[in-house]
């Protein structure tokens, strides 16, 4: 079923890159999560994986990778998930907000203070 959807709706390139998998089921890798390579690309690697490893020699946000690879963010997340599962990258996740029961998480006061100070210095 999944394959049929991708076949009928999405460009072939995306189908090939993701191996026909559907959009990311988990959204663990945030668009602004910072990705760092933990190894060098190898010769037998899927080219997108190799490209990610090259770019992420410096920390790079998932959304920047999406632009670099010219792929939708959701597809980029799938590729990152592959690499993360293999230990080929590490991911520096955005800070998790704090929340009381029934409240949306919100950023730590120190984070806001740091952002404010930095913006005021601009």
């Amino acid at each position: 079923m999944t394959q049929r959807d991708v076949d009928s709706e999405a460009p072939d390139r995306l189908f090939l890159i993701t191996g026909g998998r559907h959009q990311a089921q988990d959204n663990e890798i945030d668009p602004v999560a910072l990705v760092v390579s933990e190894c060098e690309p190898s010769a037998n690697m899927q080219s997108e994986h190799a490209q990610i490893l090259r770019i992420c020699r410096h920390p790079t946000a998932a959304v920047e990778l999406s632009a670099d690879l010219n792929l939708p963010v959701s597809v980029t997340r799938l590729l990152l998930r592959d690499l993360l599962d293999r230990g080929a990258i590490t991911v520096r996740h955005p800070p998790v907000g704090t929340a009381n029961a029934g409240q949306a998480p919100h950023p730590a006061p120190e984070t806001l203070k740091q952002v404010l100070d930095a913006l005021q210095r601009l």
Partner: protein
Amino acid sequence: MPSNVSDPAADSRPPLLDTASQGLKIVIVGGFGVGKTTMVGSVSEIRPVRTEETMTEASAGIDDASRVQDKVTTTAAFDFGRITLDERQVLYLFGAPGQQRFWFLWDQLFVGSLGAVVLVDTRRLADSWYSIDRLEYHGTPFVVAVNRFDDGPDLDQVRDALDLSAGVPLVDCDARQRQSCTSVLITLIKHLQDLYAQPPVPEGMS
């Protein structure tokens, strides 16, 4: 496509600092042509970059029974820029079209944002209604910035027309001016501080 958006393939953006460990995000939403990309570009340290998100409607929570035959892929482009705040933190600014048909993409992409700026053009205030509703529904804090193209209704009139509650900051801005855009972001962060400071959050309780 606005001409100040760089071609991702041809782009040579400077990398982040190796010490960068925390990505933060603020979303700038607004109608077509209101100046979202201009605003991103005014404060960003890189030229605004365009990328896209794509998703099928099923991912947006259409029920199982209707899933197979009704699945449609939606693709929407958005722009982003960034500001390195210090050796650890980098703030990403996303400029996203606020039309109703794109919001199910943004809901997933922009979850966890510090907050949002709703950029409005007083000649097309109705373009912002849906975005404001959606942000309120999700409890995402926001400020409203009027990108002044010419003389228009004053802020009180805009507040009435948008039916904004008194607690939502409403400011004028010029999306082309770095200082003006920075000031909008500062207004947002101060708004967040006020919002989270009251009522006081009990320490260590959950």
